[in-house]
Protein backbone atom coordinates (compact mmCIF):
# COMPACT_ATOMS: atom_id res chain seq x y z
CA UNK A 1 0.00 0.00 0.00
CA UNK A 2 2.81 2.39 0.87
CA UNK A 3 4.47 1.73 -2.46
CA UNK A 4 1.88 3.59 -4.50
CA UNK A 5 2.74 7.17 -3.53
CA UNK A 6 6.41 6.24 -3.78
CA UNK A 7 5.84 4.97 -7.29
CA UNK A 8 3.93 8.12 -8.21
CA UNK A 9 6.77 10.26 -6.88
CA UNK A 10 9.26 8.22 -8.91
CA UNK A 11 7.22 8.66 -12.05
CA UNK A 12 6.86 12.39 -11.48
CA UNK A 13 10.60 12.76 -10.92
CA UNK A 14 11.24 10.76 -14.07
CA UNK A 15 8.89 12.99 -16.04
CA UNK A 16 10.62 16.12 -14.74
CA UNK A 17 14.01 14.62 -15.61
CA UNK A 18 12.96 13.76 -19.16
CA UNK A 19 11.23 17.13 -19.69
CA UNK A 20 14.25 19.11 -18.51
CA UNK A 21 16.61 17.00 -20.63
CA UNK A 22 14.42 17.35 -23.72
CA UNK A 23 14.48 21.14 -23.28
CA UNK A 24 18.28 21.03 -22.96
CA UNK A 25 18.53 18.84 -26.08
CA UNK A 26 16.38 21.38 -27.95
CA UNK A 27 18.65 24.17 -26.76
CA UNK A 28 21.70 22.17 -27.86
CA UNK A 29 20.23 21.83 -31.36
CA UNK A 30 19.33 25.53 -31.44
CA UNK A 31 22.89 26.37 -30.41
CA UNK A 32 24.36 24.01 -33.03
CA UNK A 33 22.15 25.49 -35.73
CA UNK A 34 23.11 29.03 -34.80
CA UNK A 35 26.74 28.22 -35.61
CA UNK A 36 27.56 29.36 -39.16
CA UNK A 37 28.22 26.56 -41.59
CA UNK A 38 30.49 28.76 -43.63
CA UNK A 39 33.40 29.80 -41.55
CA UNK A 40 34.63 33.36 -41.76
CA UNK A 41 38.18 32.25 -41.30
CA UNK A 42 40.33 34.48 -43.39
CA UNK A 43 44.06 34.29 -43.22
CA UNK A 44 45.91 36.45 -45.67
CA UNK A 45 49.54 37.28 -45.87
CA UNK A 46 50.02 40.93 -44.99
CA UNK A 47 46.30 41.54 -44.59
CA UNK A 48 44.05 42.05 -41.58
CA UNK A 49 42.83 38.76 -40.12
CA UNK A 50 39.23 39.31 -41.23
CA UNK A 51 37.58 40.95 -44.19
CA UNK A 52 34.26 42.61 -43.51
CA UNK A 53 31.49 41.79 -45.91
CA UNK A 54 30.87 45.46 -46.74
CA UNK A 55 34.39 45.62 -48.07
CA UNK A 56 33.68 42.85 -50.51
CA UNK A 57 33.98 44.06 -54.06
CA UNK A 58 30.91 44.51 -56.24
CA UNK A 59 31.34 41.94 -58.91
CA UNK A 60 29.59 39.31 -60.87
CA UNK A 61 31.71 36.26 -61.26
CA UNK A 62 30.76 32.83 -62.40
CA UNK A 63 29.48 30.87 -59.51
CA UNK A 64 31.24 27.70 -58.75
CA UNK A 65 28.52 25.79 -57.00
CA UNK A 66 30.56 23.81 -54.59
CA UNK A 67 28.62 20.72 -53.90
CA UNK A 68 30.27 17.49 -53.16
CA UNK A 69 27.98 15.45 -55.25
CA UNK A 70 26.85 18.06 -57.72
CA UNK A 71 28.49 19.20 -60.88
CA UNK A 72 29.57 22.82 -60.81
CA UNK A 73 27.28 25.30 -62.52
CA UNK A 74 29.54 27.99 -63.94
CA UNK A 75 26.74 29.63 -65.89
CA UNK A 76 24.92 30.69 -62.76
CA UNK A 77 25.71 34.18 -61.48
CA UNK A 78 26.52 35.38 -58.02
CA UNK A 79 25.73 38.86 -56.84
CA UNK A 80 27.73 40.43 -54.09
CA UNK A 81 26.21 43.88 -54.04
CA UNK A 82 22.96 45.57 -55.02
CA UNK A 83 21.34 44.54 -58.27
CA UNK A 84 21.83 48.00 -59.82
CA UNK A 85 25.58 47.61 -59.47
CA UNK A 86 25.42 44.22 -61.02
CA UNK A 87 23.50 45.39 -64.06
CA UNK A 88 26.26 47.84 -64.89
CA UNK A 89 28.85 45.12 -64.97
CA UNK A 90 29.90 43.38 -68.13
CA UNK A 91 29.31 39.70 -68.43
CA UNK A 92 32.27 37.72 -67.29
CA UNK A 93 33.80 35.24 -69.62
CA UNK A 94 37.14 33.55 -69.29
CA UNK A 95 38.45 35.78 -72.09
CA UNK A 96 36.94 39.02 -70.82
CA UNK A 97 37.77 39.38 -67.16
CA UNK A 98 35.73 41.80 -65.13
CA UNK A 99 37.78 44.32 -63.16
CA UNK A 100 37.04 45.74 -59.81
CA UNK A 101 38.94 47.57 -57.18
CA UNK A 102 38.63 46.04 -53.76
CA UNK A 103 39.84 49.24 -52.12
CA UNK A 104 37.10 51.44 -53.63
CA UNK A 105 34.86 51.10 -50.61
CA UNK A 106 37.52 51.84 -48.09
Amino acid at each position, binding site marked *: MARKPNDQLKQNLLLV*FVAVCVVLVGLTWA*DNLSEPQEEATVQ*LRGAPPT*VESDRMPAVV*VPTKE*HKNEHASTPEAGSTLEAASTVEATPELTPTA*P*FYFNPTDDE
Partner: protein
Amino acid sequence: MSSTSRLPISLEEPVDSRRSANAIAHKRQNRRERLLLLLAAGAVVLAWFYGYFTSGADVAPLVPQVLPDVASVTMQGDIFVGSDADGQVIGYAATATSPGYGGPIDVLVGVDPTGEVLGVEIVTQRESPGFFRLVTSSDLVSEYTGRAITDPLRLGDDLDAVTGATVSAEGVSNAVRAAVRTVAASALDTTLPPESTPIKFGAPEIVLILLFAAGYVGHRVRKPALKKRIRWGTLLGGLIFLGFIYTAPLTITMIASLLSGYWPDWHSNLYWYLLISGILFVTTVEAKNPYCSWFCPFGAFQECMAAVSGVKAYRPRNLGDALKWVQRGLAFTAIILGLALRRPGVAGYEPFATLFDLRGNLIQWALLIIVVLASLVMYRPFCNYLCPMDPVIDVIAATRRWIKETWTTWRANPTIN
Protein backbone atom coordinates in the same frame (compact mmCIF):
# COMPACT_ATOMS: atom_id res chain seq x y z
CA MET B 1 -20.94 -7.16 -8.40
CA SER B 2 -19.63 -10.47 -7.29
CA SER B 3 -16.05 -10.91 -6.21
CA THR B 4 -15.34 -13.11 -9.22
CA SER B 5 -16.31 -10.35 -11.63
CA ARG B 6 -13.46 -8.25 -10.30
CA LEU B 7 -10.94 -10.95 -11.06
CA PRO B 8 -8.53 -10.30 -13.87
CA ILE B 9 -10.01 -11.19 -17.21
CA SER B 10 -7.32 -13.79 -17.74
CA LEU B 11 -8.81 -16.05 -15.06
CA GLU B 12 -12.27 -15.91 -16.50
CA GLU B 13 -11.48 -16.61 -20.11
CA PRO B 14 -10.42 -19.85 -21.67
CA VAL B 15 -6.71 -20.07 -22.38
CA ASP B 16 -7.21 -20.37 -26.16
CA SER B 17 -9.34 -17.27 -26.41
CA ARG B 18 -6.85 -15.31 -24.26
CA ARG B 19 -3.98 -16.42 -26.47
CA SER B 20 -5.80 -15.49 -29.63
CA ALA B 21 -6.72 -12.05 -28.19
CA ASN B 22 -3.06 -11.51 -27.29
CA ALA B 23 -1.96 -12.62 -30.74
CA ILE B 24 -4.39 -10.21 -32.41
CA ALA B 25 -3.25 -7.35 -30.19
CA HIS B 26 0.37 -8.22 -30.87
CA LYS B 27 -0.27 -8.36 -34.60
CA ARG B 28 -2.02 -4.98 -34.53
CA GLN B 29 0.84 -3.43 -32.59
CA ASN B 30 3.33 -4.94 -35.03
CA ARG B 31 1.40 -3.52 -37.97
CA ARG B 32 1.19 -0.09 -36.33
CA GLU B 33 4.91 -0.07 -35.58
CA ARG B 34 5.79 -1.18 -39.10
CA LEU B 35 3.62 1.53 -40.58
CA LEU B 36 5.37 4.08 -38.40
CA LEU B 37 8.73 2.61 -39.38
CA LEU B 38 7.82 3.03 -43.03
CA LEU B 39 6.65 6.59 -42.46
CA ALA B 40 9.88 7.39 -40.60
CA ALA B 41 11.92 5.85 -43.39
CA GLY B 42 9.95 7.94 -45.90
CA ALA B 43 10.65 11.09 -43.89
CA VAL B 44 14.34 10.21 -43.75
CA VAL B 45 14.44 9.76 -47.54
CA LEU B 46 12.63 13.08 -48.07
CA ALA B 47 15.03 14.84 -45.70
CA TRP B 48 17.94 13.32 -47.60
CA PHE B 49 16.69 14.63 -50.94
CA TYR B 50 15.81 18.01 -49.47
CA GLY B 51 19.32 18.33 -48.06
CA TYR B 52 20.88 17.09 -51.27
CA PHE B 53 19.15 19.64 -53.47
CA THR B 54 19.38 22.63 -51.16
CA SER B 55 22.95 22.39 -49.94
CA GLY B 56 25.91 24.05 -51.58
CA ALA B 57 27.89 27.20 -51.18
CA ASP B 58 28.91 29.92 -53.57
CA VAL B 59 32.67 29.90 -53.63
CA ALA B 60 33.34 32.84 -55.95
CA PRO B 61 32.82 35.62 -53.36
CA LEU B 62 35.49 34.04 -51.21
CA VAL B 63 38.23 34.16 -53.83
CA PRO B 64 39.42 37.68 -52.88
CA GLN B 65 39.90 36.37 -49.37
CA VAL B 66 42.53 33.87 -50.43
CA LEU B 67 44.10 36.01 -53.15
CA PRO B 68 45.03 39.36 -51.59
CA ASP B 69 45.14 42.45 -53.84
CA VAL B 70 43.14 40.67 -56.54
CA ALA B 71 41.38 42.99 -59.01
CA SER B 72 39.76 40.48 -61.33
CA VAL B 73 38.84 36.85 -61.19
CA THR B 74 38.32 34.52 -64.11
CA MET B 75 37.80 30.81 -64.27
CA GLN B 76 39.97 28.38 -66.12
CA GLY B 77 38.51 24.94 -65.85
CA ASP B 78 38.27 24.14 -62.16
CA ILE B 79 40.47 26.91 -60.88
CA PHE B 80 40.05 30.63 -60.31
CA VAL B 81 42.69 32.90 -61.77
CA GLY B 82 43.21 36.19 -59.96
CA SER B 83 44.82 39.20 -61.64
CA ASP B 84 45.78 42.66 -60.43
CA ALA B 85 44.63 45.96 -61.96
CA ASP B 86 47.27 45.71 -64.68
CA GLY B 87 46.06 42.30 -65.74
CA GLN B 88 49.02 40.49 -64.23
CA VAL B 89 48.17 37.11 -62.76
CA ILE B 90 48.79 37.28 -59.04
CA GLY B 91 47.53 33.89 -58.04
CA TYR B 92 45.28 30.91 -58.46
CA ALA B 93 42.61 29.49 -56.22
CA ALA B 94 41.05 26.05 -56.14
CA THR B 95 38.54 24.26 -54.00
CA ALA B 96 38.77 20.74 -52.66
CA THR B 97 36.79 18.53 -50.35
CA SER B 98 37.78 15.98 -47.79
CA PRO B 99 35.71 14.04 -45.26
CA GLY B 100 35.69 15.31 -41.70
CA TYR B 101 33.88 13.90 -38.67
CA GLY B 102 30.37 15.08 -39.57
CA GLY B 103 30.74 15.26 -43.34
CA PRO B 104 32.86 16.80 -46.03
CA ILE B 105 34.93 19.87 -45.34
CA ASP B 106 35.26 22.19 -48.33
CA VAL B 107 38.19 24.56 -48.52
CA LEU B 108 39.38 27.22 -50.93
CA VAL B 109 43.11 27.69 -51.22
CA GLY B 110 44.94 30.57 -52.90
CA VAL B 111 48.42 30.02 -54.31
CA ASP B 112 50.70 32.57 -55.98
CA PRO B 113 52.46 31.85 -59.31
CA THR B 114 55.67 30.88 -57.49
CA GLY B 115 53.85 28.15 -55.59
CA GLU B 116 53.44 29.85 -52.24
CA VAL B 117 50.18 29.44 -50.35
CA LEU B 118 48.53 32.86 -49.99
CA GLY B 119 45.49 31.93 -47.97
CA VAL B 120 43.11 29.20 -46.91
CA GLU B 121 39.38 29.62 -46.46
CA ILE B 122 37.03 27.02 -45.06
CA VAL B 123 34.02 27.22 -47.35
CA THR B 124 31.68 24.74 -45.70
CA GLN B 125 31.88 22.17 -42.98
CA ARG B 126 29.38 19.87 -41.30
CA GLU B 127 31.25 19.20 -38.09
CA SER B 128 29.87 19.31 -34.58
CA PRO B 129 30.25 22.99 -33.68
CA GLY B 130 32.07 22.17 -30.45
CA PHE B 131 34.69 20.15 -32.30
CA PHE B 132 35.14 22.55 -35.15
CA ARG B 133 35.57 25.49 -32.81
CA LEU B 134 38.81 23.81 -31.73
CA VAL B 135 40.01 23.90 -35.34
CA THR B 136 39.06 27.52 -35.97
CA SER B 137 40.51 28.64 -32.67
CA SER B 138 43.79 26.85 -33.42
CA ASP B 139 46.53 28.15 -35.69
CA LEU B 140 45.93 25.42 -38.26
CA VAL B 141 44.41 27.61 -40.99
CA SER B 142 46.97 30.38 -40.59
CA GLU B 143 49.84 27.90 -40.56
CA TYR B 144 49.42 27.27 -44.29
CA THR B 145 50.03 30.86 -45.28
CA GLY B 146 53.50 31.37 -46.69
CA ARG B 147 54.24 27.68 -47.14
CA ALA B 148 55.36 26.22 -50.44
CA ILE B 149 53.12 23.79 -52.30
CA THR B 150 56.01 21.33 -52.28
CA ASP B 151 55.95 21.22 -48.47
CA PRO B 152 54.35 18.11 -46.90
CA LEU B 153 51.43 20.16 -45.45
CA ARG B 154 50.61 17.30 -43.13
CA LEU B 155 49.46 17.32 -39.52
CA GLY B 156 52.11 16.06 -37.20
CA ASP B 157 54.73 16.64 -39.89
CA ASP B 158 55.12 20.32 -40.72
CA LEU B 159 51.78 21.34 -39.19
CA ASP B 160 50.62 21.13 -35.59
CA ALA B 161 47.82 18.65 -34.87
CA VAL B 162 44.65 19.91 -33.19
CA THR B 163 44.01 18.09 -29.94
CA GLY B 164 40.39 17.06 -29.44
CA ALA B 165 39.38 17.53 -33.09
CA THR B 166 41.78 15.20 -34.87
CA VAL B 167 39.35 14.01 -37.55
CA SER B 168 38.15 17.54 -38.39
CA ALA B 169 41.72 18.85 -38.55
CA GLU B 170 42.72 15.90 -40.75
CA GLY B 171 39.79 16.76 -43.02
CA VAL B 172 40.97 20.36 -43.37
CA SER B 173 44.56 19.26 -43.95
CA ASN B 174 43.62 16.66 -46.59
CA ALA B 175 41.35 19.13 -48.40
CA VAL B 176 44.05 21.83 -48.46
CA ARG B 177 46.57 19.37 -49.91
CA ALA B 178 44.05 18.30 -52.56
CA ALA B 179 43.36 21.94 -53.53
CA VAL B 180 47.08 22.68 -53.69
CA ARG B 181 47.55 19.69 -55.98
CA THR B 182 44.78 20.95 -58.25
CA VAL B 183 46.48 24.34 -58.58
CA ALA B 184 49.88 22.72 -59.08
CA ALA B 185 48.63 20.46 -61.83
CA SER B 186 46.29 22.88 -63.60
CA ALA B 187 48.07 26.21 -63.34
CA LEU B 188 51.66 25.83 -62.25
CA ASP B 189 52.65 22.82 -64.33
CA THR B 190 54.21 21.33 -61.26
CA THR B 191 53.99 17.64 -60.61
CA LEU B 192 53.83 16.89 -56.92
CA PRO B 193 54.84 13.45 -55.68
CA PRO B 194 51.88 11.07 -55.36
CA GLU B 195 49.97 11.17 -52.09
CA SER B 196 50.56 8.26 -49.80
CA THR B 197 47.57 7.42 -47.64
CA PRO B 198 48.71 4.96 -45.02
CA ILE B 199 46.06 2.87 -43.34
CA LYS B 200 45.68 3.99 -39.77
CA PHE B 201 45.40 0.86 -37.70
CA GLY B 202 46.51 1.25 -34.12
CA ALA B 203 45.56 0.84 -30.51
CA PRO B 204 41.96 2.21 -30.77
CA GLU B 205 41.12 -0.22 -33.56
CA ILE B 206 42.69 -3.16 -31.70
CA VAL B 207 40.85 -2.29 -28.49
CA LEU B 208 37.57 -2.03 -30.40
CA ILE B 209 38.03 -5.44 -32.02
CA LEU B 210 38.89 -6.95 -28.63
CA LEU B 211 35.76 -5.42 -27.08
CA PHE B 212 33.60 -6.79 -29.88
CA ALA B 213 35.19 -10.21 -29.43
CA ALA B 214 34.74 -10.13 -25.65
CA GLY B 215 31.12 -9.06 -26.09
CA TYR B 216 30.54 -11.88 -28.57
CA VAL B 217 31.99 -14.44 -26.19
CA GLY B 218 30.13 -12.87 -23.26
CA HIS B 219 26.81 -13.16 -25.08
CA ARG B 220 27.34 -16.89 -25.50
CA VAL B 221 28.46 -17.67 -21.97
CA ARG B 222 25.74 -19.53 -20.03
CA LYS B 223 27.06 -19.12 -16.51
CA PRO B 224 25.53 -15.91 -15.15
CA ALA B 225 28.44 -15.14 -12.81
CA LEU B 226 31.03 -15.46 -15.59
CA LYS B 227 28.82 -13.53 -18.00
CA LYS B 228 28.50 -10.74 -15.44
CA ARG B 229 32.27 -10.63 -14.98
CA ILE B 230 32.92 -10.48 -18.71
CA ARG B 231 30.31 -7.76 -19.08
CA TRP B 232 31.89 -5.66 -16.35
CA GLY B 233 35.26 -6.20 -18.00
CA THR B 234 34.02 -4.93 -21.38
CA LEU B 235 32.13 -2.07 -19.75
CA LEU B 236 35.21 -0.87 -17.90
CA GLY B 237 37.32 -1.38 -21.02
CA GLY B 238 34.85 0.71 -23.01
CA LEU B 239 34.74 3.40 -20.32
CA ILE B 240 38.51 3.70 -20.02
CA PHE B 241 39.59 3.26 -23.64
CA LEU B 242 36.67 4.31 -25.85
CA GLY B 243 35.66 6.95 -23.31
CA PHE B 244 38.45 8.63 -21.43
CA ILE B 245 41.47 7.73 -23.57
CA TYR B 246 40.23 7.83 -27.18
CA THR B 247 36.91 9.68 -26.72
CA ALA B 248 35.41 7.68 -29.56
CA PRO B 249 31.92 6.46 -28.61
CA LEU B 250 29.21 5.75 -31.15
CA THR B 251 27.19 8.92 -31.75
CA ILE B 252 24.13 9.95 -33.70
CA THR B 253 26.44 12.16 -35.78
CA MET B 254 28.07 8.98 -37.10
CA ILE B 255 24.67 7.57 -38.05
CA ALA B 256 23.62 10.84 -39.73
CA SER B 257 26.94 10.87 -41.63
CA LEU B 258 26.41 7.27 -42.66
CA LEU B 259 22.91 8.02 -43.95
CA SER B 260 24.02 11.24 -45.67
CA GLY B 261 26.66 9.34 -47.57
CA TYR B 262 29.39 11.38 -45.90
CA TRP B 263 31.67 8.48 -45.18
CA PRO B 264 35.12 9.40 -43.94
CA ASP B 265 38.28 8.25 -45.66
CA TRP B 266 38.71 4.65 -44.60
CA HIS B 267 42.49 4.81 -44.59
CA SER B 268 42.57 7.20 -41.68
CA ASN B 269 39.18 6.37 -40.13
CA LEU B 270 39.21 2.62 -39.93
CA TYR B 271 37.84 2.88 -36.38
CA TRP B 272 34.64 4.53 -37.69
CA TYR B 273 34.09 1.69 -40.15
CA LEU B 274 34.89 -1.03 -37.62
CA LEU B 275 32.51 0.41 -35.04
CA ILE B 276 29.58 0.95 -37.38
CA SER B 277 29.99 -2.22 -39.43
CA GLY B 278 30.55 -4.28 -36.26
CA ILE B 279 27.30 -3.03 -34.73
CA LEU B 280 25.36 -3.48 -37.98
CA PHE B 281 26.76 -6.95 -38.46
CA VAL B 282 26.05 -8.24 -34.96
CA THR B 283 22.60 -6.63 -34.83
CA THR B 284 21.51 -8.03 -38.18
CA VAL B 285 23.19 -11.43 -38.07
CA GLU B 286 23.12 -12.26 -34.37
CA ALA B 287 20.03 -10.20 -33.49
CA LYS B 288 21.87 -8.85 -30.47
CA ASN B 289 22.85 -5.36 -29.44
CA PRO B 290 26.61 -5.66 -29.08
CA TYR B 291 27.25 -2.11 -27.99
CA CYS B 292 24.88 -0.53 -25.49
CA SER B 293 25.03 -3.01 -22.63
CA TRP B 294 28.52 -4.28 -23.37
CA PHE B 295 30.97 -1.48 -24.00
CA CYS B 296 29.24 1.86 -24.54
CA PRO B 297 31.49 4.15 -22.47
CA PHE B 298 28.70 6.50 -21.40
CA GLY B 299 26.48 3.58 -20.50
CA ALA B 300 29.38 2.12 -18.53
CA PHE B 301 29.80 5.39 -16.67
CA GLN B 302 26.12 5.41 -15.68
CA GLU B 303 26.33 1.78 -14.70
CA CYS B 304 29.26 2.57 -12.41
CA MET B 305 27.21 5.33 -10.81
CA ALA B 306 24.34 2.87 -10.35
CA ALA B 307 26.72 0.35 -8.77
CA VAL B 308 27.99 3.01 -6.36
CA SER B 309 24.52 4.11 -5.30
CA GLY B 310 22.99 0.63 -5.46
CA VAL B 311 20.10 1.79 -7.62
CA LYS B 312 18.15 -0.89 -9.47
CA ALA B 313 16.54 -0.85 -12.90
CA TYR B 314 13.11 0.77 -12.77
CA ARG B 315 10.41 0.40 -15.37
CA PRO B 316 7.69 3.03 -14.98
CA ARG B 317 4.37 1.24 -15.23
CA ASN B 318 2.28 3.89 -16.97
CA LEU B 319 4.92 5.99 -18.65
CA GLY B 320 7.06 3.31 -20.26
CA ASP B 321 5.56 3.53 -23.73
CA ALA B 322 5.22 7.32 -23.77
CA LEU B 323 8.85 7.81 -22.75
CA LYS B 324 9.98 5.29 -25.33
CA TRP B 325 8.34 7.47 -27.97
CA VAL B 326 10.01 10.59 -26.58
CA GLN B 327 13.36 8.85 -27.00
CA ARG B 328 12.46 7.73 -30.52
CA GLY B 329 11.31 11.26 -31.32
CA LEU B 330 14.67 12.67 -30.25
CA ALA B 331 16.56 10.19 -32.42
CA PHE B 332 14.26 10.83 -35.38
CA THR B 333 14.56 14.62 -35.07
CA ALA B 334 18.35 14.38 -34.82
CA ILE B 335 18.58 12.29 -38.00
CA ILE B 336 16.13 14.49 -39.92
CA LEU B 337 18.08 17.61 -38.88
CA GLY B 338 21.38 16.08 -39.93
CA LEU B 339 20.05 14.94 -43.31
CA ALA B 340 17.86 17.92 -44.22
CA LEU B 341 20.61 20.41 -43.45
CA ARG B 342 23.36 18.13 -44.76
CA ARG B 343 25.11 18.83 -41.47
CA PRO B 344 25.37 15.62 -39.46
CA GLY B 345 27.41 17.54 -36.90
CA VAL B 346 24.40 19.54 -35.71
CA ALA B 347 22.39 16.39 -34.96
CA GLY B 348 24.46 15.37 -31.97
CA TYR B 349 23.22 16.16 -28.49
CA GLU B 350 24.87 13.47 -26.43
CA PRO B 351 27.05 14.86 -23.63
CA PHE B 352 29.82 12.35 -24.36
CA ALA B 353 32.55 14.85 -25.20
CA THR B 354 31.59 16.91 -22.18
CA LEU B 355 32.26 13.98 -19.88
CA PHE B 356 35.23 12.38 -21.58
CA ASP B 357 36.94 15.48 -22.93
CA LEU B 358 35.63 17.98 -20.37
CA ARG B 359 34.55 20.14 -23.26
CA GLY B 360 31.17 21.68 -23.92
CA ASN B 361 29.07 24.78 -23.55
CA LEU B 362 26.81 25.67 -20.65
CA ILE B 363 23.86 23.67 -22.05
CA GLN B 364 25.93 20.54 -22.50
CA TRP B 365 27.37 20.84 -19.02
CA ALA B 366 23.88 21.30 -17.60
CA LEU B 367 22.69 18.18 -19.45
CA LEU B 368 25.68 16.18 -18.24
CA ILE B 369 25.27 17.25 -14.62
CA ILE B 370 21.55 16.39 -14.64
CA VAL B 371 22.26 12.99 -16.18
CA VAL B 372 25.07 12.26 -13.72
CA LEU B 373 22.89 13.21 -10.74
CA ALA B 374 19.99 11.19 -12.15
CA SER B 375 22.32 8.20 -12.55
CA LEU B 376 22.57 8.06 -8.78
CA VAL B 377 18.83 7.52 -8.39
CA MET B 378 17.92 5.88 -11.71
CA TYR B 379 19.47 3.04 -13.65
CA ARG B 380 21.16 4.38 -16.83
CA PRO B 381 18.75 7.30 -17.28
CA PHE B 382 20.38 8.61 -20.45
CA CYS B 383 20.40 5.18 -22.12
CA ASN B 384 16.82 4.42 -21.14
CA TYR B 385 15.15 7.72 -21.92
CA LEU B 386 17.33 9.96 -24.07
CA CYS B 387 20.07 8.20 -26.00
CA PRO B 388 19.36 8.20 -29.76
CA MET B 389 21.37 5.04 -30.36
CA ASP B 390 18.88 2.75 -28.64
CA PRO B 391 16.05 3.57 -31.11
CA VAL B 392 18.49 3.30 -34.03
CA ILE B 393 19.54 -0.20 -32.98
CA ASP B 394 15.85 -1.02 -32.33
CA VAL B 395 15.00 0.00 -35.89
CA ILE B 396 17.74 -2.24 -37.29
CA ALA B 397 16.50 -5.14 -35.15
CA ALA B 398 12.84 -4.50 -36.10
CA THR B 399 13.71 -4.38 -39.80
CA ARG B 400 15.61 -7.62 -39.43
CA ARG B 401 12.61 -9.26 -37.72
CA TRP B 402 10.28 -7.97 -40.38
CA ILE B 403 12.40 -9.27 -43.24
CA LYS B 404 12.83 -12.61 -41.49
CA GLU B 405 9.09 -12.98 -40.85
CA THR B 406 8.22 -12.02 -44.41
CA TRP B 407 10.78 -14.47 -45.73
CA THR B 408 9.53 -17.27 -43.48
CA THR B 409 5.91 -16.64 -44.48
CA TRP B 410 6.85 -16.53 -48.14
CA ARG B 411 8.86 -19.73 -47.86
CA ALA B 412 5.96 -21.48 -46.14
CA ASN B 413 3.44 -20.43 -48.76
CA PRO B 414 4.82 -18.52 -51.74
CA THR B 415 1.35 -18.01 -53.27
CA ILE B 416 0.21 -15.76 -50.38
CA ASN B 417 2.64 -13.03 -51.31
